[in-house]
C-alpha cells in the first residue's frame, strides 16, 4: 500500500452561521489542528456567504498548504465555489475534501457526547484521506460547428431546419429518396397543422434549398466513431462509395412503424386499418348504394386490441368518427377499453362525437367478429350496460370495421441506434426510459435521440422533442471548445490485458481499444515505434467519471483519478 504520509493539509472550520459552533468547540479545534500533516487551521463564521475560500489565499501562501479539508456542511453545498477556486485561488479543486459534520453529525446524531466523538472520527478520517488526493487538470477539446441529423421523416427535417435556421451547418443523412415522398407520418398527428400537405410541402422545399443544410439522400450509415466534438460518420452514398462526415454532435430522428392486425390482413376488405380511413372515404363513398356495391352505412371502430397504452389512436378514431357521422351520415360505433382523451383538445372532440351521435362502447373482453350476410358482426359485452345489472351481449353489424395498427419499432432505427451506441429498450425502441437523461439526451455525450424511435408518440410531441434536441445540440456546438475536468477514468496500458470488459460495460461509450506504440513493454530498443501494442483507452471527453469500468477491470489497470482505489482503501482502513 502506498504511503499517505505526504502533503501539507490546511483546515478551514466553517461554523455554518453558528450552527456548528457548539459542536466544534475549543477541544475539537485543538484536536483537528493536532492531526498529522495539518499545518494550518482557520475559522469562518459562514464560508458561503462570506465570499468563499478566496480570502484565505494569502494565509495559505505562508503555510504552503497543497490540500484542504473543510469541516462544515455537506460537500454539495460547497461544490460550486470549488470550481471558482480554480480561477482565483492557488488550490486545485480536486485537492479539497469536506468533512460533512453538519449533515452527518449535527443533524443526524442526537447524543452530544456521541456526536463529538463522531465528528472527531469524521474529521480524522477526512484528513487521512486528504493525503491521497492528486491535482486534476482541465482539458479542452475543439468543437466544430456542425451537427448531423440522421432520419427519414418529418422530425428529422424539423431538427435539421432548426439547426440550419440557427446558422449551424447541418448534414441530413436520410435513407429515403427523394426526401418527403412518404407522407404516412401525417397520420401520426392528433390535431396537426391546418393545411397538412401545404405545411409538408413547404418543409420539404426548405430542406432542399436551405444554404446551411446539406442533404444526403439514399444514404446509409456504415460506421460511427470518435468522440464528442469530432465524431466520424461514415456513410454509403447511392453510388456505393464511402464518405466520412466529421461532426460535433448527432441527432437520431426516426419514426416508428405500424403493422396492420391479423384480421385486417387475412380477414376481408371490410376490415380497414385506421390509417386507411381517409383513403376509404375517397374511394368508397358511403351511403350511395347505387354507385358501389361495397358502400357502407355502419362503421365500427375497434381500438385497444393493440396499443392499449398509447393515446394517439383514440384521438384519430374520434376525429374520423365525427367526420363519418356528421359528413357522411353513417352510424358509427367506437369499441374500446378506455377512451383516451389525454391529448390536448381530445376531450372536447370526444364530447362533440357523442353529441353528433357516435356510440361509444367500452369493453373488458375483446369483441368477437363473425360474418353475417356480408357484414361483420361484433359481439361485445358493454361494460356500462353490465353496470346496470343485466349482463347481455350487444351484437353490432357493421359494413366496415376499422382496426388500429400495432406500433412497432423499425428495424432500421434499431440498427442506427446500435451503431450510435444508444441502448434499446425491451420493445426495441431506442433509449431506455431513464429520467436522468431527460429525455432526448443519450448517455453518449453529443448524441441525441428524438421522435417515434423513442416510443410511438403523437407527431406534435415528436416535433417538440426535435426542438429540444436542437437546443441541446446548439448549446454544445455554439462554443468553439468544450472544457472539462480530467476527473475521469484512466487506463494503465502496461497492465491492460485487453479483455474488453471495460469497453463492453461503459454506458457512455467512452472506452476504445487504442494503440500505444511508444509504451510497448515487449519492444526492445529501436523497435518500439514500429511495433504496436493495443490497450484500452478512455476518451476523456466522453467519460463521466463514474467508475463503472474500474470495478470491472480484472487486472486493476483502470483507476478513477478523482477517487482512486487507494483512497477508498484508506477510507476503509480505519
Amino acid at each position: 500500500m502506498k504511503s499517505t504520509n505526504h502533503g501539507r493539509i490546511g483546515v478551514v472550520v466553517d461554523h455554518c452561521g453558528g450552527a456548528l459552533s457548539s459542536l466544534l468547540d475549543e477541544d475539537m479545534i485543538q484536536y483537528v489542528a493536532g492531526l498529522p500533516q495539518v499545518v494550518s487551521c482557520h475559522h469562518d463564521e459562514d464560508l458561503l456567504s462570506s465570499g468563499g475560500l478566496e480570502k484565505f489565499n494569502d494565509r495559505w501562501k505562508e503555510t504552503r498548504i497543497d490540500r484542504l479539508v473543510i469541516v462544515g456542511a455537506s460537500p454539495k453545498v460547497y461544490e460550486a465555489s470549488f470550481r471558482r477556486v480554480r480561477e482565483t485561488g492557488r488550490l486545485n479543486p480536486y485537492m479539497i475534501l469536506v468533512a460533512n459534520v453538519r449533515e452527518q453529525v449535527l443533524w443526524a446524531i442526537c447524543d452530544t457526547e456521541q456526536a463529538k466523538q463522531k465528528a472527531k472520527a469524521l474529521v480524522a478520517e477526512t484528513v487521512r484521506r486528504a493525503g491521497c488526493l492528486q491535482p486534476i487538470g482541465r482539458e479542452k477539446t475543439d468543437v466544430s460547428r456542425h451537427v448531423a441529423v440522421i432520419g427519414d421523416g418529418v422530425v428529422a427535417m424539423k431538427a435539421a431546419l432548426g439547426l440550419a435556421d440557427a446558422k449551424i451547418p447541418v448534414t441530413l443523412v436520410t435513407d429515403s429518396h427523394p426526401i418527403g415522398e412518404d407522407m404516412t407520418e401525417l397520420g401520426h398527428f392528433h390535431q396537426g397543422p391546418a393545411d397538412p400537405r401545404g405545411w409538408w410541402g413547404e418543409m420539404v422545399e426548405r430542406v432542399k434549398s436551405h444554404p446551411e443544410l446539406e442533404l444526403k439522400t439514399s444514404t446509409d450509415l456504415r460506421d460511427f466513431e470518435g468522440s464528442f466534438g469530432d465524431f466520424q460518420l461514415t456513410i454509403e452514398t447511392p453510388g456505393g462509395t464511402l464518405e466520412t462526415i466529421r461532426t460535433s454532435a448527432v441527432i437520431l430522428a426516426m419514426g416508428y412503424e405500424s403493422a396492420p392486425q391479423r384480421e385486417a390482413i387475412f380477414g376481408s376488405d371490410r376490415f380497414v386499418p385506421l390509417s386507411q380511413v381517409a383513403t376509404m372515404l375517397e374511394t368508397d363513398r358511403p351511403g350511395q348504394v347505387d354507385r358501389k356495391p361495397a358502400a357502407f352505412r355502419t362503421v365500427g371502430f375497434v381500438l385497444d386490441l393493440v396499443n392499449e397504452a398509447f393515446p394517439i389512436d383514440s384521438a384519430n378514431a374520434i376525429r374520423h368518427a365525427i367526420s363519418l357521422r356528421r359528413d357522411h351520415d353513417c352510424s358509427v360505433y367506437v369499441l374500446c377499453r378506455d377512451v383516451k382523451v389525454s391529448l390536448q383538445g381530445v376531450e372536447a372532440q370526444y364530447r362533440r362525437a357523442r353529441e353528433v351521435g357516435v356510440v361509444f362502447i367500452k369493453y373488458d373482453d375483446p369483441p368477437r367478429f363473425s360474418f353475417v350476410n356480408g357484414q361483420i358482426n361484433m359481439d361485445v359485452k358493454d361494460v356500462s350496460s353490465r353496470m346496470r345489472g343485466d349482463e347481455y351481449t350487444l351484437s353490432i353489424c357493421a359494413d366496415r370495421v376499422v382496426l388500429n395498427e400495432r406500433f412497432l419499432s423499425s428495424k432500421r432505427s434499431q440498427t442506427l441506434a446500435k451503431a450510435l451506441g444508444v441502448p434499446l429498450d425491451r420493445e426495441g425502441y431506442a433509449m431506455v426510459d431513464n429520467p436522468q437523461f431527460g429525455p432526448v439526451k443519450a448517455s453518449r455525450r453529443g448524441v441525441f435521440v428524438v421522435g417515434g424511435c423513442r416510443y410511438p408518440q403523437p407527431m406534435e410531441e415528436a416535433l417538440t422533442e426535435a426542438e429540444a434536441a436542437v437546443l441541446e445540440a446548439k448549446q454544445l456546438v455554439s462554443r468553439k471548445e468544450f472544457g472539462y475536468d480530467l476527473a475521469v477514468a484512466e487506463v494503465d496500458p502496461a497492465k491492460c490485458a485487453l479483455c474488453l470488459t471495460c469497453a463492453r460495460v461503459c454506458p457512455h461509450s467512452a472506452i476504445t481499444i487504442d494503440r500505444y506504440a511508444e509504451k510497448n513493454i515487449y519492444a526492445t530498443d529501436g523497435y518500439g515505434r514500429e511495433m504496436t501494442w493495443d490497450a484500452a483507452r478512455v476518451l476523456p471527453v466522453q467519460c463521466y467519471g463514474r467508475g463503472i469500468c474500474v470495478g470491472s477491470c480484472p487486472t486493476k489497470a483502470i483507476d478513477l483519478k478523482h477517487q482512486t482505489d487507494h483512497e477508498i482503501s484508506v477510507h476503509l482502513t480505519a
Partner: protein
Amino acid sequence: MRDRNVLIVGGGIAGITAALELAGLEISSTIVERDADLGGQARFYACKASGECNRCFACVVDHRIHEVTRRRNIRIMTGSRLKRVGGGPGGFNALVGSEGHEEEVDAAAILVATGIDPFDAQQKPELGYGLFENVITAPDLNEMLRTKGRPCRPSDDAVPSRIGFVQCVGSRDQTIGHPWCSNVCCAYALRFMRAIRHGNPAIQTTFFYLDIQPLGKSFPSLLRSCRQDRGMRLIRSLPSRVDGDTLSGDVSVRFIDGLSGEIVEEAFGLLVLSVGMTPRSDAEQVGDFLHLPRNEDGFYRSPPENSGIFVSGACKGPRDIGGSIIDAKATVGRMAHHLGGS
C-alpha cells in the same frame, strides 16, 4: 447575446429548466416566483419508485432546483409577483414586487411558466375532503411519503390496510366546469399504488377510474404491472358518495361494482383523491398584464413569436414534469431564435 436578460415568470419545473437552458446559451435570466421556494408543485413530490424507477421525475426536479441556485447568471426572486409590464419586444420592463420591496427588471423577452393550481377538492363535497380526516388529496400523499416514507392515516397515524384512489377529481367534470382531462393523474395514481404496494405488500389498493389515460414511454409496462398485481383492483366506476366513520376513522365509499352491477359500499382506511390541474387562480390577472390569449379551458395559448412573450409548461395545458421539461427546452430554442434574430 451576453447582456440579454429574460424574465421568467414562475419558478416551477418549466421556469427552472428554461433558466438553466438559457444559461447554457449564456443568456442571463431572472426568475420571479410567487412562493418562498422554487420548484412549484413539483417540489413537494415524493419518489414513487417501486424497486425500479416509475418515472415520477421527483429526483429530477430536486436536482434541478439545486442546480439553478448555483448558476451565477440566474437571478432568483422568490416571494415576488409581477406587478406591471411595460415596453415591448426586445425591451420589456417589468415591475416586480415582494413584501415591502419593488424593483424594475429589464428583459429582452418574457417567458410565462406560471404552472397550475391543483384542483381544490372541497369543491366536490360529496367526496368528503375537508370533512373526514382520512380523505386526502394526492399532494397530501406526496408530502406524507416524502417526510414519513410511508402512507399513514392522518387521524391516528396508523398504516391503513386498504387505500382507495379516486380519479378525475376536478377533471373531465362538466358539473364544475372542468371538462378537460388533466393528463397526469392516472399515471401518478398508478405510480403511487406501485410504490405503496412495493413498500408494504400488505396494503391493498383500489383504483376508481373512468378511463385510463396513458402518458409517456414507460406507461405500457406500468399499466401491465398494475394489472398483474393482485393487490391492486382497478374499478371502472367513480364513487358517488363518501362517508366517514368517526369511531374507526374508516371511510366508506359508494360505487357501482363492475361484476354485480349493484351499488355497493366499501370501507377504506385511507382515500386519496387524484386531483387534477386547473389554471392558476391569478392566471387571468397575469394574462391581462401580458395580453395572453387563453383557450376555452382557461389555459394560456402561445402568443405570436414576434410579441417577445413565450409560454411554457403546464400553464399551456396539463402536462407532466417530463413534458414540461421538453416543452421548456423547445420554448427556449424558439426564444433564442427570436432573440438572435431581433
